[in-house]
């Protein structure tokens, strides 16, 4: 078999593999969609769940996930923005920058279950926030910090030096430089980071499993110390009853809603990242 046909064969074989891998997503989507659809009756998104999740809707679970997500961004955005601005504008020492970069990588690589453990211990037990949506938001905030920082840092570094030099030449103080040059110009980078952070916080289960959620009895949290039902933990409980068809259908329905939420946020981040590139070339 001459080497030419061998090569053609190999390339063909690889193309099949690539097709297989990229169709993997479609297979996952199709299964979740096909399995989840029967559960999506009219009230699925607005009714409460009944009979331990075997029937009814997932309204409060969805609200719980949204509350945790937004709480996380609320806490994480200022810290991420502030720390990246400090690292790029004020921090000069090489070792200082290296330490910050390494800590960013540490936080990004840490298994999320450890955030749950140490987060619950520190926030829940030491700071007395107990099992509540506040603890959940704080844990998720720490978890998505690196995601936000990467996007913000990308946007700031993509900013051409010319703008900064011009700002400096005009004698702008660092704060006014940040306020009128850095933040406005990196606006899309920040928003992209927010959406990526939301997507990651929405899909996270291990970190909030025992720190922020409850099985039944709660609708909307009515105080800072109330836990919240979430889509993820609802799915976790239902998945453990996979033998019971109605429960499994509910789990798939919740999975479909969670997956579409995560995909929606990711696609929004892409659209904004597109604007970011366009912005940088302006």
């Amino acid at each position: 078999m001459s080497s030419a046909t061998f090569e053609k064969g190999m390339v063909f074989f690889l193309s099949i593999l690539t097709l297989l891998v990229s169709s993997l997503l479609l297979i996952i989507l199709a299964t979740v969609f096909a399995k989840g659809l029967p559960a999506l009756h009219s009230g699925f998104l607005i009714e409460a769940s009944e009979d331990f999740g075997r029937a009814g809707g997932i309204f409060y679970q969805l609200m719980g996930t949204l509350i945790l997500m937004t709480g996380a961004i609320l806490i994480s955005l200022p810290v991420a923005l502030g720390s990246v601005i400090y690292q790029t504008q004020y921090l000069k020492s090489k070792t200082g920058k290296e330490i910050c970069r390494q800590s960013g990588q540490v936080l990004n690589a840490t298994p999320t279950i450890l955030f749950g453990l140490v987060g619950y211990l520190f926030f829940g037990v030491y700071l007395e926030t107990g099992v509540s949506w506040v603890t959940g938001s704080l844990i998720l905030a720490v978890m998505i910090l690196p995601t936000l920082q990467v996007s913000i840092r990308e946007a700031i570094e993509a900013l051409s030096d010319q703008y900064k030099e011009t700002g400096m030449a005009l004698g702008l103080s660092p704060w006014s430089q940040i306020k009128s040059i850095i933040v406005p110009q990196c606006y899309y980078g920040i928003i992209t980071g927010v959406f990526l952070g939301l997507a990651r916080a929405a899909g996270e289960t291990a970190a909030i499993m025992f720190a922020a959620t409850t099985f039944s009895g709660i609708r909307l949290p009515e105080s800072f110390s109330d836990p919240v039902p979430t889509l993820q933990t609802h799915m976790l409980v239902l998945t453990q009853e996979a033998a019971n068809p109605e429960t499994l259908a509910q789990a798939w329905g919740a999975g479909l809603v969670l997956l579409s939420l995560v995909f929606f946020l990711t696609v929004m981040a892409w659209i904004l990242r597109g604007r970011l590139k366009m912005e940088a070339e302006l």
Partner: protein
Amino acid sequence: MKNESHGVMLVFAGLNLIFLCCAGGLFFFLIFESYPILKLHGFDFWLGQDWWVGETYGALPMLYGSTLVTALACLLVLPLALAVAIFISEFLTSTSRRFVKAVLELLAGVPGIVYGLLGVSFLSLWIKDIFGLLDGNTLATAGCLLAIMILPTVLTLSEDAMRAVPAEYREIALGLGLSKWQMATGVVLPQALPGIMGAVLLGIGRAMGETIAVMLVVGSLDRIPDPWFNIFSSAQTIPSKLGREAAESIGEGTHWSALMALGLMLFIMVLLINFLGNRCLKGRSIS
């Protein structure tokens, strides 16, 4: 005007400090909380074979389970990722390349619980039937599920490593009359090898840390499988153990300290792997 900008700098410095404390605090708490058990048991905590709450705490089964599951995932992913990465970076047009990359990024974003659901409803039943096992929740199921989960990450990073190979190398190869295939395997692949190593290591780091999907399909049996290489027996990994038992012992007691020691072990392993991975990604050889 002078003190105003100084005050502002302090605010930003403060925010940066909070960020550093998060990273540092995590490590500190893990060490601080696992100190009691390490003092009590010392080394045989890591080597102890049986984990019986209240009596003895042996971390070996979890350690072994984690390593075996990750090794299995890595074994399945490596050839597939390498082959597909070559095809994407060398043989695909740029538009379809961008489309495949987008698909991969979406795949990487799928939450772990959805993979868990897929694993429980399909994978474990298939593996049970194919291999005629007693129960579908085994190391093999967890390994396959993890392979699917880390495939997008490893694939994207390896493909980036291959794209990072300078265009001149390709021109020289083509100039010498090599075919595209010979160029890909002869020039691009060896050049991109450190990057690919980095990609695989980062993939391993993520596989090690996955909790939910593994917890649902690994069978959570705190024992090393009787013939040690038997991947078709239930076992336990560190994150799965933490996920199952953390609620019971939260906050105090030797049980909690033992769990935190497990967490510390996982933390150090993942950090080491990640550190090596990032060094490779930067193209510096590991030596």
